[in-house]
């Protein structure tokens, strides 16, 4: 598949160089990566989408992709300009972007959340389930394993990654406390 590099770069934000903000919100089909330890990366509400976080604790670099759909084969033209729409192309783009910040593949810690499911619906509408299956399949194929995940359910959530510690939290509206996928480390 040929990739439109300029269009792709406009959807992948390296927040080290682009902003002085400390909280970066990642919209649908966007990727943000950073090694600025003052920053927290966070998705908006995910619904059936997935928020996938990766982090290298040694160089304290990480990123999040906010992914809409399971497979780029359904619309390859859309993946060419916007890889983070799909699990397969989005994962490749996310890992490449984080590795470009001196992260090492063997050190990457991986977490994901989202994939909410509408109860009792037609199989076509189980997009959350398809997304979760797709990311698990992609990780297996590429010899990677998630540290932890919070997927499914009927509640929309969001995921956030703090770059100074690698702490990963899942927020669910209406719940008093967050779900912690990773406590993070303050060791420097």
């Amino acid at each position, binding site marked *: 598949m040929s990739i439109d590099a300029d269009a792709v770069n406009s959807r992948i934000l390296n927040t080290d160089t682009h902003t002085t903000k400390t909280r970066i919100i990642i919209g649908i089909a966007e990727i943000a990566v950073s090694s600025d330890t003052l920053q927290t990366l966070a998705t908006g509400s*995910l*619904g*059936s989408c997935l928020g996938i976080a990766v982090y290298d604790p040694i160089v304290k670099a990480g990123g999040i992709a906010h992914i*809409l759909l399971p497979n780029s084969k*359904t619309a390859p033209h859309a993946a060419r300009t916007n890889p983070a729409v799909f699990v397969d192309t989005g994962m490749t783009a996310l890992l490449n972007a984080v590795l470009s910040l001196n992260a090492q593949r063997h050190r990457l810690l991986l977490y994901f959340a*989202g994939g909410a499911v509408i109860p009792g619906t037609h199989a076509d509408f189980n997009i959350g389930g398809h997304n979760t299956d797709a990311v698990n399949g992609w990780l297996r194929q590429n010899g990677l394993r998630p540290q932890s995940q919070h997927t499914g359910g009927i509640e929309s959530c969001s995921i956030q990654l703090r770059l100074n510690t690698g702490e990963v939290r899942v927020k669910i*509206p209406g719940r008093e406390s967050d779900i912690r996928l990773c406590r993070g480390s303050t060791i420097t």
Partner: protein
Amino acid sequence: MQRLDDYINAARHLPPAPHILPQLLELLEKEDADSDEIVELITYDPALTFGVLRLCNSAYLGAALPACDIQEAVTRLGFKPVFQLVAAVCGGKTLAPPQEGYSIEPGELWRHSVATAVCAQLIAKECHINENLAFTAGLLHDIGKIILSEFMEASLPEVLNTAKNSRLSFPESEKAVLGVDHAEIGGRLLAGWRFPPEIIEAVEHHHNPSAAIEHKKLAACICLSNTITHCMGLGCGLHAFATGGQEESIAILKTCPDTPQTLMLGTFRKLELVETLFTQALR
């Protein structure tokens, strides 16, 4: 019916009525629609004219030369897009405020409503449903939440518990606790504002389209659009995933060839429009 009116009459914060929308829809549906009449109706409201021209000249629509008046906007864009801009400007005032009773943040209901309108238009195109009616019904489908929000402030925990314990959808649980649901209230409110019967019925039955009597297809179109926007994370409020009616909507719209994934992608691609309308409405 009396119970619906009781809630509407008891509400302390009635949303402003978008009076121009039913009048415009009526004009647009006439075979011999007179453009002067339509332009005059919009121009009558200076704030609306200003809002529509600002959107019309925004970067999204990419006008090389800005339109100076509504007539020029209509000539350049056509009636359908201008109608949608009018609907967006009117709807923004009504739908942007927070609705604490449903834990809906400022702008959240508005963003969900515009995305639903955009998706409804995509389905309408495929299923030979009137696109203006689908867009407007999508935009206004949750308007009943504005009325019910203040009553929900005390009842939300009970509604959520009922949904969880009795395995009911959110609207069913609303009805069990309050005696009415937001879809019925919305339909009744729009009837009072003299919206066309298609829109009233589609809003009233956007969680149970097979209960609609004459306009099942439009109700099913709104039900599916609502689901798609929830899947995209553009939902609103707590427990927004616990809706119903998807199976029956697919059965009613059997002519719709698009899969949910295609609809999500199509709506995503129009999100820029959603974002433009969303931002302008909050100004």
